């Protein structure tokens, strides 16, 4: 899988490159509009991470360029502005997703997976980790070939980790991802522990070979066999 990162901030670009390389992607980078245009013209990509505000031109114009070239690349707009107009215009111009800065790296990786999945296999495929398979469209979970019944929050937590395998997830980020932004003032995470306990028990009882492991003092990590 080949990914192009178009981002003008060197530090953030470096972080994104390192993270994605570790996830076995082939990563190229462009720091400004002209460089990005050259890359798009010369190569095909599976996914492009696109900043809107670029030196030398707008990321939205690159989107138009991609559309004209009938590029099959999935595009995720990465913008610091979190502006609705940018979002609407970007999605109308054919972007697949919109990720406002600042984001979690695990989130970035999950979004890339999701876009790639949709582009490669029309979105009907499952997320797989070990002997656990999860179908996001039908909210179904299978462990070792047998369907497992999960409650809503348990399913959401499993989905969250399956899209971010091997990332250590901060428990606040997990709570925010599953419960929404309301958790920002909770100073007690018993509600996460309670759901997590049930989910782990159900996975264990069904004979799953993956484990959501606690990282003490920090959060959790999905570990595959």
């Amino acid at each position, binding site marked *: 899988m080949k990914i192009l990162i178009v981002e003008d901030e060197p530090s953030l670009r470096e972080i994104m490159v390192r*993270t994605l390389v570790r996830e076995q992607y082939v990563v190229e980078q462009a720091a400004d509009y002209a460089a990005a245009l050259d890359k798009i013209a010369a190569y095909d990509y599976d996914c492009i991470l696109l900043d809107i*505000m670029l030196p030398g031109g707008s990321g939205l114009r690159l989107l138009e360029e991609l559309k004209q070239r009938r590029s099959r690349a999935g595009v995720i707009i990465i913008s610091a502005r979190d502006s609705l107009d940018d979002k609407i215009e970007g999605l109308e111009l054919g972007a697949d997703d919109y990720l406002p800065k600042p984001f979690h790296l695990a989130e970035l990786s999950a979004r890339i997976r999701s876009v790639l999945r949709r582009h490669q296999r029309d979105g009907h495929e499952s997320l797989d980790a070990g002997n656990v398979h999860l179908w996001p469209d039908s909210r179904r979970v299978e462990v070792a070939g047998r369907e497992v019944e999960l409650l809503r929050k348990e399913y959401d937590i499993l989905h969250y980790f399956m899209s971010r395998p091997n990332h250590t997830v901060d428990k606040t980020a997990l709570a925010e991802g599953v419960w929404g*932004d309301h958790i920002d003032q909770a100073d007690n995470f018993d509600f996460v522990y309670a759901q997590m306990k049930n989910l782990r028990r159900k996975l264990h009882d069904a004979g799953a070979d993956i484990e959501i492991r606690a990282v003490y003092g920090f959060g959790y990590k999905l570990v595959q066999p």
Partner: protein
Amino acid sequence: MKLVYRILLHLSWALSLLLAAWAVLFYVTMIDEINDEVDDSLEARAEVILTRVLAGRELPVAASEGNNAYFLNEVSDEYAAVQPRERYSDEEIFIPERDDEEPARVLRKVFHDRDGKWYELTVMTPTIEKDDLREAILYWIVCLYLFLLLLILLITVVVLYRTMRPLYALLRWLDGYTVGARNPPLAIDTSVTEFRRLNDAARRYAERAESTFERQKQFIGNASHEMQTPLAVCRNRLEMLVDDAQTLTEEQLGEIAKVQRTLDYLVRLNRSLLLLSKIDNGQFPEAEEVDINALVRRTAEDMEEIYAYRGMRFTLTDEGPLTMRMNPSLAGSVVANLVKNAFVHGDAGGEIAVTVAPRRLTVANSGAGGPLDAGHIFDRFYQGAKKEGSTGLGLAVVDAVCRLYGLKVAYSYINGRHCFTVEFPA
């Protein structure tokens, strides 16, 4: 007070003073003139009688009914010595025929004949009733005053509204003016210098406000852009550190988690400020019919789970369907902020009561410490007691959203309960 009333009030004051002064002057002059005439005729009559007395001729018959009556009395030398030779006075004299007193002008002349005997001649003539005159003058002055006032009122109103038309047009324009919104041009055609200057000034200040507003918007946009990227870098570097966590101790992970908390707080703060500025700029155009009942139910369910450790008793009362055409994510922030507020700031183990009525949403929670400052509770960064992790912007967001959609949000403290009420327009 409207300008026209103010002008009328001043005019009526000035007019009443002016007319009162004029009435006094008029009265004094008139009385003076009348007395002058009467005195002349009294003098003439006294002269005739005096000549006859001194000539020893027959005196005229004193007319009855007080008219032209006269008396001639002999007086003592002493009396004559202290009296002036001639004096006029206004007196009430008794008319026997009418059995009544009448006002009269009286002339008393003291003289002596050839024998040195002193006489006092009293000549009188009935004169006008001064009380009546004063009354009449007062009456007509009041009439005149009212008439003038009415006339001036009419003229003032007509003139004022005609000449002040540009002013009222300007006021209407200013009333309808919203900085940052699409405003109609200030099209007022007037040849009056003052109004032209006023219009120019208004236009100039509007332009200045526009450019300041524009700059501020850009500043917030730029500031957010400048802050988001470094925040992303900080957060992501820490995440990379944790992802390669083989060498980190539990203690170090804990410290990193704490730094992440602080970063989360900064991110939230930045996000809330952006949200507020976007609401203020009206950047939430898309709206749909939002089912508030369902929204409250969903939100409350999550909150109950998240804040279960606070051990609060939560009751949701549904008194009827409440829907509102608005941006769904803004509706979500109003409900979430109010409900979360109750869970976070209410007493642990206390009560929370949420009521959804057809046009009203009420969120109440028990809380010690008495009422909060209702005048500032919706201000940005106002916090009764500083709570860690709280941005102090939640209620400001609620207020901004309510203002955007014309909802009325109010705070009250009743029977030891903090109560927030949002009234939805019918």
